[in-house]
């Protein structure tokens, strides 16, 4: 039998995204945050999560979409990835899905509004399509991203040669 995992699905610009539920620490309503200077535009700031200073990113801005007015359904999903916590602001949370690993399809390299590097794959729930997020990659420092890009480029060069 294939591995089964649960995903929390969230709404973002009329699309549905899945976050591995084991990485989700809590869901809380939107509260104002303290801005951090010299940060990427998608990092809204930091909030006080019971004494821990936790950065919050806006998933719309992260994916290059326009920022929505925050309203009553806007929530912050607190995610823990490899010991680090961060918050992700999304339009709304919707559901919890059981997904077996053989139901996850690779992401075709087109069509979605989101850069495919943040996606693990996609799956369907009924007639809806759910994009599964790779939470590890959401809050990487730009240095790490640049380094990774450079490494990939180096690999490509090697492959060509």
């Amino acid at each position, binding site marked *: 039998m294939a591995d089964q995992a649960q995903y929390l699905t969230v709404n973002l610009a009329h699309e549905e995204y899945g976050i591995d539920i084991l990485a989700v620490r809590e869901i809380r309503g939107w509260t104002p945050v303290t801005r951090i*200077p*010299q940060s990427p535009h998608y990092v809204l700031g930091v909030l006080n999560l019971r*004494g821990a*200073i*936790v950065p919050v990113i806006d998933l719309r801005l992260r994916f290059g979409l326009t920022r929505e007015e925050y309203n009553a359904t806007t929530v912050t999903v607190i995610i823990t990835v490899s010991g680090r916590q961060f918050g992700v602001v999304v339009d709304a949370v919707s559901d919890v899905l059981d997904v077996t690993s053989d139901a996850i399809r690779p992401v075709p390299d087109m069509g979605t509004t989101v850069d495919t590097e943040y996606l693990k794959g996609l799956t369907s729930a009924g007639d809806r399509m759910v994009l599964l997020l790779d939470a590890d990659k959401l809050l990487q*420092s730009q240095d790490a991203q640049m380094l990774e890009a450079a490494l990939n480029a180096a690999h490509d060069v090697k492959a060509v040669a």
Partner: protein
Amino acid sequence: MSNINIAQFHKVFFEESLEGLDAMESALLALDDGGAAELVHSIFRAAHSIKGGSATFGFPDMAALTHEAESLLDQVRDGRRAIDKSIIELMLRTVDCLRGMFERAQAGQPLADAQSEDLKRQLAEAAGHNVPAAAGKAAAKPAASGGWSIQFRPHAGMLAGGNDPLRLLRELAALGQLVVEAQLDRVPTLDALDPSECHLGWRIELTGAVSREAIKAVFEWVEDECDLTIEPLVVAAPPPAPSVEAVAVPAAGAGAATGTARGAAASGNDAGSVRVSIDKIDGLIDLVGELVITQAMLDQFREDFDPSRLAMLQHGLAQLARHTRSLQESVMGIRMLPIGSVFNRFPRLVRDLSQKLGKQVKLELVGEHTELDKTVLEKIGDPLVHLVRNAIDHGLEMPDKRRAAGKSDMGTLRLEAFHRGGSIVVEVVDDGAGLNREAIIAKALQKSLISSADTLSDEAVGELIFQPGFSTAAVTTDLSGRGVGMDVVRRNVVDLGGTVSINSRPGKGTTFTITLPLTLAIIDGLRAAVGEECYIVPLVSIVESVQLRADAVRSVTGGGELFRFRGEYLPIVRLHQQFGCADARQNIDEGLVIVVEADGTQIGLFIDELIGQQQAVVKSLEANYRRVDGISGATILADGSVALIIDVAGLIRLQSRRKAA
């Protein structure tokens, strides 16, 4: 039993064992100075706990080595041989080797290496040499005898320790054929019988080719909780003392317990836990009690409040503030550990170094009970080691030179810690030759660090040795002289928010003074408003705040702004520009300039206004995010929101970098 993952206990085992090793080491060093016999017992207990633990947790190599050490110690303990320098040296090397093994165990590497095997052999030889007869007999016994007669008498409290005699008997039965005879002579009458105590004893005859070690291994954990005699079965007369394993340690389990307690007292180990004295915890509980009482008192006002009781309410609130403050101080105190745990490593270091160099050094430790924040404590060890090494290698002279200079042969090295104001001062003082001014200047000229030697003050010469790559040692030894050292010392101390200074008198000696902040966890700060945002400026770095007239500011080419402050021109950093804050005041005369200082440089920070003073508990931004230039951390304000703490030194660095660019 088998489904318990034993690896989860490894961390605790490592921690306790390393403490045990520290205890062994300090006891050995004390023995070296002519200490009492009680020290041998504590060394033995520490070794014994480590041996038992390592066997249980699956580190047979470690257990084998400690076993040999223990055998040797056993002979010393029983008075069968006198302790001498060679044994102490051997034991110290064993301690080092075991430390190495623990490090490898933590890294998951194989434990045994050539050194440990070599040591094991040397220990066995040392144990064998002095008592050749006993060793010979021990080797001959298992082969000669067809079995063993075992007298096993548990102490009354053994069951309470979770040890079941039946289990031991079953284990013995697995070794060979067993004839067991219970001894009922100590069983009391029914009315006096306590069923939770063990009153039985056993006489056991075990036949089969079994080694004494195998039998002892069965009784490993109850050794301290029973009277045990193991004799070869066929020998009619009882063998001499060496083979009698009657261990009469009073109070069941006390052996292991005192071993660890001693270790704890001797060293607050660096691993991720803090040992807190009961006194501190009791103090906390008292304070919490007070707080609860105050809260109950304030609660009354909720029920029915009338203005006539306003004074009482104010009194209650004042009390609440006072208790909160003391609670805060006490809780911070938990992070404070005595510097003795760092000082403890030096007797050994000094002993080894002075032997190696042929110098005579007396080490004085003063103020070991001075308490420091745990984070500071962890990081101050290495710089101190550097300073002590330097003092012995470069500072103190050889005995003949000292005699020629009219000093005693024995050089003195003093490590002293004490409080001064809001800081901790650690001094490393030697009575050696002092800095060699000529050599340092020559070296500095050679490295073109300075252009001429004429105008240099003694302080400036002292400063030179903190330059990277600076060493005047003619020959590089494995101790020091490679030129990495003093600059690293300074950097480490500065990273902790402290300073290092040097004071040297030719022929009299050198004093290094390290000044450290008491704690890194709480700072006093002023809240500064910039636009809609609020930042905390550490109070220690604030010199003054001034309101400038618009015409007091000079613009310089390149976009910088300067203002005149006490006869000097200081650059202005506009915080709203630096941090990109919206809606901030733009005109100099509408806001405030606070003059801040770090590393001897001053700048003016332009902000909107100061809101007030507050204590800030420093939280890390890096724990979940990353470092941000000009920000040293974050704190939580009274309303639960987050405010960022300004890194003044970082801002000044940014400013000078911009100037350079």
